């Protein structure tokens, strides 16, 4: 088995698969290592499918806007996989004055960065989505947001990258990174296999913290549980992505007809840790109550399954991207904080550019590893 390549990518989620794809397209040789037995087994397959600009931190907004302009509209054709991308807008719903305040603040910050997003009243919300209850009194509306299928998109990147010659190995858990003459070079695995490359991309979600720690780099992030439920197929109702000011729930109706709704119980961080992401008994009923208040006519829709996953939650809520001064040869792509799906094509493309040409179209300065400082300087 070949164990050297120009780039070793650690992590076979959407970020790792997409970086591998953009690198191999530019002619680089790539080995991609996935620790679990399945491609896209972390947050890549466990998220709400939002391809969203509104509600994001201004530091990562230019990157996601770049992706929605250049990659998402043609991604299904490019990957020969139905990514089920819909660009029909995002409604972030509010019911109270406090919600309105939160949404107005988010909207003002996004407008400053050049995003087309505005506040609308309850009647206008119901003109866009007539199924919403009278409880909704306001919303932020971003017409260029949307949603896609995270499962097929992730596997589509994998399939296409593999076809173009990326060497994927699953079940290969990285235990250590090693420098040679001051430059990162070797990737040591639990199996005893050692891989060597000129560049090592670390895109292993939360596991990135442990792996980066072996070369003295500590990325301030924690896991946080995310849960969602899926309904049986329903007649077509609407195509917008939905969220709420209080984050009661979020989600959309899929091409298949089922609704995928994520949400929380408010007890996150204190639920039982079984070592694997298992749904908490109180969460799905709580999400159901939230949904019924917004969509009374979904009360008879049947839930067919629930699922849970972990987010790699970064200290300041935005990803850590790019090169690291202390470790030449290392490129970080982690800490996406539960909203890494929509931004994945742009982040992966720009990091592939950085590796091949040394420059990027979007300024990634605010997302670098050296941005973290203690509160008293």
């Amino acid at each position, binding site marked *: *088995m070949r164990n050297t390549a120009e780039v070793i990518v650690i992590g076979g989620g959407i970020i790792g698969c997409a970086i591998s794809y953009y690198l191999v397209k530019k002619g680089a040789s790539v080995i991609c290592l996935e*620790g*679990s*037995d*399945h*491609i*896209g*087994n972390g947050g890549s*397959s466990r998220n709400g499918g939002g391809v969203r600009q509104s509600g994001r931190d201004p530091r990562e907004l230019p990157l996601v806007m770049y992706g929605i302009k250049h990659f998402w509209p043609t991604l299904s054709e490019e990957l020969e996989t139905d990514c089920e991308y819909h660009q029909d807008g995002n409604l972030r719903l509010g019911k109270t004055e406090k919600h309105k305040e939160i949404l107005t603040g988010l909207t003002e910050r996004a407008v400053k960065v050049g995003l087309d997003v505005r506040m609308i009243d309850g009647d206008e919300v119901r003109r866009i989505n007539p199924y919403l209850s009278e409880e909704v009194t306001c919303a932020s509306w971003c017409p260029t947001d949307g949603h896609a299928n995270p*499962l*097929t998109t*992730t*596997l589509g990147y*994998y*399939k296409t990258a*593999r*076809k173009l010659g990326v*060497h*994927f*190995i*699953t*079940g*290969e*858990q990285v235990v250590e990174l090693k420098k040679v003459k001051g430059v990162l070079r070797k990737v040591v*695995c639990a*199996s005893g*296999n050692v891989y060597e490359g000129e560049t090592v991309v670390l895109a292993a979600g939360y596991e990135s913290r442990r792996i980066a720690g072996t070369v003295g780099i500590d990325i301030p992030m924690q896991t946080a549980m995310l849960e969602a439920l899926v*309904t*049986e197929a329903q007649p077509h109702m609407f195509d917008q992505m939905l969220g709420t000011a209080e984050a009661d729930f979020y989600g959309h109706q899929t091409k*298949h007809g089922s609704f995928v709704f994520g949400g929380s119980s408010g007890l996150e961080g204190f639920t039982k840790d079984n070592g694997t992401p298992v*749904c908490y008994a*109180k969460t*799905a*009923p709580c999400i*159901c*109550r939230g*949904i*019924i208040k917004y969509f009374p006519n*979904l*009360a*008879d*829709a*049947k*839930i*067919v*399954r*629930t*699922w849970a996953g972990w987010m790699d939650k970064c200290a300041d809520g935005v990803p850590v991207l790019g090169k690291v001064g202390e470790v030449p040869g290392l490129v970080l792509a982690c800490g996406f904080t539960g909203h890494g799906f929509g931004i994945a094509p742009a982040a992966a493309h720009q990091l592939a550019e950085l590796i091949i040409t040394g420059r990027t179209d979007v300024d990634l300065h605010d997302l670098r590893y050296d941005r973290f400082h203690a509160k008293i300087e």
Partner: protein
Amino acid sequence: MNTVNDRSRELKPFVPSPDDDMLICRCEEITKGEIRKAVHEGMWTMTEIRRYLRTGMGLCQGQTCAKLVKAIVARELGVSPAQLEPATSRAPMRPIEMRVFANERKEGQEDA
């Protein structure tokens, strides 16, 4: 326990078969041919097949087709079905209306 799995290993070439049109996952209407083709596109685990094609994601949640899918994938990979992981089961056991699921009151308790 995770097993090192080299995804560039060559499989026997895909040969169309007369029963490729046979429905395997009845809920989501996925055929044998679609499953076989997905294996050749790189989907080598039950989990990946499910996420790629939706087998076992319908109303019965794979209670009917999981065993059949596993046999097809194993044969295509040239391995024993025992080498593939069991298909994932997720709560609830049976489809359940949101208004029922949303109600956590114990039997006999009064309406709030």
